């Protein structure tokens, strides 16, 4: 072997592709906001903006522009206007990051985990029960134990569809949706029955012990809890797992070309189960961190929608674990700023749903974005999101 004088170029990261896909995501968001503005203008006839002095007075002569300024201004200030708003945006982003990672990891293995919702529910419940069940354990044991309970229940709820897919061919889209309903009903029974906190009139579990709570990062005035740090760390851990370990190499290979994976000696069954278990575990952690950091008990349906929004977040981030962080923050910001937007402009909170839906459409049909903004068409093979129905 002859060694070349200069060192070989560093492998791995395709910066150009990454930059383009980032640009597409940003343009998708931009386009959604522009169309959202159109929706505001069309519907603002009934809106009654709260005429208060502020920057919008400068453009206040035209009613429609004023409404627009109030709406998006309110959205922005509500999401990022002051330290508390920023902290709340990050709080909102925490479960989105973890659940987004869950869905993204599934995509990497060619699996479409629609069951993050059910896995979050199971994780939340398990963490709430584990957090409340023991008394007097030191924090260093109790908190990890409660988190682990959440991770494991989510992992179990994810592994089952993975196993069914590998062994019987039952498509994970179907089985995870079914398991969502099972989770909802099961939890409904548990919080009204065995785990109900009898001291409360509402069906909910008992409060978790102080030792099992994730600490607030900046004191109780800011709701930002340590779950956010866990989410950031997990994003890097998942990135590392996928790109720097043999485990991730197998998961990605099975996702990119299952036939070649099998040819190369990888087990499809093992990887399907493993990927779905990790995915479910991350979703479970999303639930557990919310229970242990914020809610401190489990009540029905507080998780509503995290699981489904996380699919959109994974798409927006092109399943890149690091990209999940800003995508989740964007989602969290929309959710967090919506209240002030409605207060300021009288525009319904539901506008946020429209903007989110538009983002999903533009990201999913990214050729539209590439066409509008004259970006080069996507080259090479595209990410396989899922297989099964003739895919």
């Amino acid at each position: 072997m002859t060694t070349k004088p200069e060192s070989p170029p560093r492998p791995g990261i395709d910066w150009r592709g990454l930059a383009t896909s980032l640009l597409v995501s940003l343009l998708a968001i931009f386009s959604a906001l522009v169309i959202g503005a159109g929706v505001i203008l069309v519907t603002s006839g009934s809106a009654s903006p709260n005429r208060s002095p502020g920057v919008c007075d400068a453009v206040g002569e035209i009613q429609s522009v004023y409404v627009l300024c109030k709406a998006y201004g309110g959205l922005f200030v509500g999401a990022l206007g002051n330290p508390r708003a920023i902290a709340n945006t990050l709080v909102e982003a925490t479960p989105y990051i973890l659940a987004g990672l869950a869905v993204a990891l599934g995509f990497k293995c060619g699996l479409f985990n629609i069951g993050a919702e059910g896995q979050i529910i199971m994780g939340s419940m398990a963490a709430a029960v584990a957090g409340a069940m023991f008394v007097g354990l030191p924090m260093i044991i109790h908190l990890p134990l409660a988190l682990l309970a959440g991770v494991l229940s989510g992992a179990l709820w994810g592994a089952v569809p993975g196993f069914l897919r590998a062994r019987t061919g039952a498509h994970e889209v179907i089985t995870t949706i079914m398991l969502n309903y099972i989770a909802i009903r099961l939890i409904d029974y548990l919080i009204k029955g065995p785990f109900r906190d009898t001291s409360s009139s509402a069906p909910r579990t008992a409060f978790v012990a102080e030792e099992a709570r994730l600490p607030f990062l900046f004191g109780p005035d800011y709701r930002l809890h340590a779950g956010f740090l866990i989410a950031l760390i997990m994003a890097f851990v998942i990135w590392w797992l996928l790109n720097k370990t043999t485990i991730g190499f197998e998961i990605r290979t099975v996702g990119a070309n299952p036939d070649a994976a099998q040819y190369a000696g990888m087990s499809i069954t093992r990887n399907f189960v493993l990927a779905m278990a990790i995915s479910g575990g991350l979703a479970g952690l999303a639930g557990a961190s919310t229970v242990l950091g914020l809610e401190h008990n489990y009540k029905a349906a507080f998780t509503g929608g995290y699981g489904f929004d996380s699919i959109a977040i994974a798409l927006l981030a092109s399943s890149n674990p690091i990209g999940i962080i800003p995508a989740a923050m964007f989602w969290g910001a929309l959710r967090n700023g919506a209240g002030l937007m409605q207060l300021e402009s009288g525009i319904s909170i539901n506008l946020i749903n429209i903007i989110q839906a538009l983002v999903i459409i533009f990201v999913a049909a990214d050729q539209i974005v590439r066409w509008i903004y004259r970006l080069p068409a996507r080259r090479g093979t595209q990410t396989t999101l899922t297989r099964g129905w003739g895919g």
Partner: protein
Amino acid sequence: MTPVLEVRSITKRFPGVLANDKVSFTLEAGEIHAFLGENGAGKSTLMNILYGLYAPDEGEILVRGERVAIHGPTDAIRLGLGMVHQHFMLVPTLTVAENVMLGTEITSGLLLDEKQANRRVRELSEQYGLTVPPDALVQNLPVGVQQRAEIIKALYRGAEILILDEPTAVLTPQEADDLFEVIKVLRAQGKSIIFISHKLKEVLAIADRISVLRRGRMVGSALPQESTEESLAAMMVGRDVTLTVDRGAASPGAAVLAIDELVVLDDRRQRAVDGLSLEVRSGEVLGIAGVQGNGQTELVEAITGLRPTEAGHVILAGTDLTGASPRRVLDGGVAHVPEDRHRHGLVLSYPIADNMVLSTYLRPPYAHGVVIDDAAIAANAERLVEMFDVRTASAHAPASTLSGGNQQKVVVAREFTRPIKLLIASQPTRGLDVGSIEFIHKNIIQKRDEGVGVLLVSAELDEILALSDRIAVMFKGKILAVIPAEQATRHGLGLLMAGVVEEPADVIPA
């Protein structure tokens, strides 16, 4: 005399590729015009333009002297163009006559008039010497007969110009000879034929005129009586090539692979491999000849652990690997060049470097524990790219950016540089240019000389004859005979491939 078909300066661009670059040719009435070219030379694009499946970017098409625009197969059929695709467009569960009239059904009232359809098919089949049973189900017919049904379908729709796309790819040598007879009858009756192929021998045998395409350009035309295989190959590739493989005598040792009474089912749960026994010795190339679809694919998949076995044994160097996982087979010292490199051999979206460790990523130096060593993988890739002359800008480019030949070199580089006892090469040069074929053949022989047992499966009889020390003929899941290479003839093998077992002296029954 006006040519029946004239193509003037056709250009067709695909993103990043000039598939046809100012291609012009004429087709005279009653002529067999062969188009020769490597895969990717632009033959298929040109024919798809003629059949209206693609619109040319520039240029014009004249049929019987008149400029025409062909917007789709309907236009093409109306103009008297008929196409027989490499992969037949027949409905297996319908009869020949039903297939022929599909789309232009003969009806009486609301019912199909099967009798009249059968009669028309019979008339055509007598007129052109195309023996086809009109009322037989297509799925029950041999491939050669199905092909005749396709030709009848085109004739039924009034084709005056027939385009045959790689028509011999799926035929035995004898079936190919039958097809040539049919083509000659068609010519005698005034039909014009475009014959597409990359096989030099048959083009020389059948064509009146030969046009050669290379990288989208018409690089020359030749008359068969003035050409040799070498001269055509040189025109196809653009340089002189050697068509024979340099190799000394084999010195076979002990058996590396012993297969005993193996039974394997195909995807439809039919017995594709049916009680097959076989032995490959170290230091020899055992070639499996046979028409595609006689169980070769299933045999290889069963040996490599990709497909379960029903009965029998696979023994690798004394170890029973029947039903073992692909990982165990790999670790046992088996290299596998799969027949479909896109499906099994490569992950196209992965960099070349990752593809080169696809089956060794688990082990040092590429991984320590579960942590992958990117530097070791890169170094390996740099080394192999140079050693196997993979033409690429970087070892970190995705495999999808490589040409077919270079993709195959990546697979070969990966498989040949592991410590192996047995090499299974399945269609190792399918779709490759002549240069890459030379290279891969040389490497296979080199492995043999290093003492590796080689099991070669190929649909190209020439490849089998060029590389094998012993030739096993596979027919309907069984080995009909194993013949020492020096005693094998194309004729003898052809008969065996068709399932005809004579008892001439040179055939030793398995």
